């Protein structure tokens, strides 16, 4: 049995192999799509840079990382705070980039063919 995309009929294996370079955009609610399209490229870029910069500062700025050094409390999810701090930062960037990907996808900006055709 082979998994197939409900919309295009392309097999999942084909997509993994890269034979389908332009799969259909992710399905999103109309509100989400409208929101994504309402954003300007500048606001998307600003948001992305701010997100990356915030994580960068939290991890790289000496006063920031020294302030959590040795901190055990509050213990969150069973983890000393300093451990949670580093996992949280990694997760924040991961989630942020996933949201960015989703927005770009809804705007049709991830596929060369769609941009080319002005879809």
């Amino acid at each position, binding site marked *: 049995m082979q998994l197939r995309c409900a919309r295009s009929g392309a097999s999942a294996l084909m*997509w*993994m*192999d*890269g*034979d*389908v*370079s*332009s*799969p259909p955009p992710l399905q999103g609610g109309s509100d989400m799509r409208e929101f994504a*399209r*309402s954003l*300007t*490229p500048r606001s998307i870029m600003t948001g*992305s840079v701010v997100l*990356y910069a915030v*994580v*960068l500062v939290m*991890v*790289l*700025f*000496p006063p920031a*990382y*020294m302030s*959590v*050094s*040795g*901190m*055990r409390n509050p*213990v969150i999810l*069973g*983890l*000393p705070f*300093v*451990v949670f701090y*580093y*996992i949280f*930062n*990694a*997760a924040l*960037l*991961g989630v942020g*980039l*996933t949201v*960015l*990907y989703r927005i*770009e*996808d809804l*705007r*049709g*900006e*991830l*596929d*060369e*063919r769609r*941009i*080319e*055709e*002005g879809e």
Partner: protein
Amino acid sequence: MVVSLGLLSIFYLVVIGILYTTQRKESTGSFSEYAVGGRSYGPWYVAMSYVNSWWPGSTFIAFFGMAAGAGIFGFYGLAYSTLGVGLMYFLATRAWRWGAAYDLQSQPDLLGKRFDSHAVRVIASVVGVIAVFPWVVLGMQALGELFHVASGGTWSVAVSLVVGIAVIVVRQIWTVNMGMRGLIMTDMFQGIVAYGVSTLIGVIMLTGMGSSPISLSTLATLPEQFLRIPGDGGSYGPLYWFALIFTGVIGALCWPMSFQRIYTASSVRAVKASTIRTMLISGVFYTVLMLVGMAAVTVPEVAADPQGGWFTLLDQFGGTWLTGLAVVTVFAAAMGHIDGSVQVSGLQIANDIVQRPGKPLSDRQLTYIAKGSMAGFMLLATVVAFSTFNMTRLQLLAQISYQLVVQISVPLFLGIFWRGGNKYGAAAGMVFGSLVASIMTFFFPDDIPALGSLTGGIVGLAVNLVVYLVVYAVMGQGEEERERVNRFFEVAQRPTRRIGAAVTEPVLVASGADELRDEDREL
């Protein structure tokens, strides 16, 4: 011994089986097909290949040892890997479009094109290959140690080294023959075993299930010394943590193997999707490994030998079978890293060093040279691995190599995101930066106390950046060069199609892209 070696043999045979079944009888014969798999891979393959090139087998030894021996110290790897891999998202569009438009095969290829300079291309390539070499040697030597463990100590270190190196050398026959395609197909399997299986085992151990020697609950009561960041007391200065993570972040895409993954992807979408998947796989795997390491600080046998902690824990948890599995996970990660390093080194030697401007080699010639370079690279690494076994200075070379490879970052990042700079500044910056970084790291292998524990690589980077900017300020860009750079950047702003493996002219369909932007502005 029988179980560990048996599991290793099964794993190895599966890898060889995958290579046999995926080997294409008919090849297009193009160098792009050989070097970057014809830019045809989807996000999961690219992601797993990236993770394989990112976390070598030593992650289970050196990084695990850091967490088990020094606690939070190990988490610097999570910080730099997340930020470093995340950076790929932001340069994905430009780098992929340039790659597809100009049929670029490697990171130095891009730099050469950006600065219109063969010298820049050669310097970047030489720095990359030299930086990779000690890691391949160390990886081969680590395999020797691994077989020593797998044999239960019954094989001498010398015999284990011979077996370890023989196994990896035989594997490289397919790397040489198949190029990138041989790498990507096995990376998926190796990655699942190395990172998937180890994550699963780690999670089970952290739950405290069965006879697990550790538990997540241990973490909340760890002594404070294990929660202190280096530089907060102790012998390191306050900038040591910054230097470690910063070097890792900017070094992420300086490693030739990492950047190469952009050019194996089938589209901008595939690069961006693979970035997110890489962050997920890498982040979950590494976080679990570090939590296991930190939870193990209270295990006396691990405290006595933190670097062997992964094997110790799995032996205590599941006896012979889990020890065998531990060996296989490390072997899988080590193999994936060495494969990627050998492949990209051969590619860069052929494509960026041997090939001269004005005298382009045919695809067949390039492929032959790349294959020969890979074989030569592997042979040299084998000789060095044998002759330098137990030499501590080799570890120093590996440290220098890391400080060295980040010197590519100045022309790489400034070249991608800024139209300024010129080839003289790019070349001189890398040369001076590399020299300063190498010399400083030779005298201060770990940190420079007088500079708050900054590392030699950071000092080299500062010199590199100053040279790049000063040379540009003094010499500027000629009118012709400015126009060339503008045209180069215009290519990255417009959609570019990948047409098979052939060289494709950028599809300058300004209307489509511009209409979209206009539409966005209206919205």
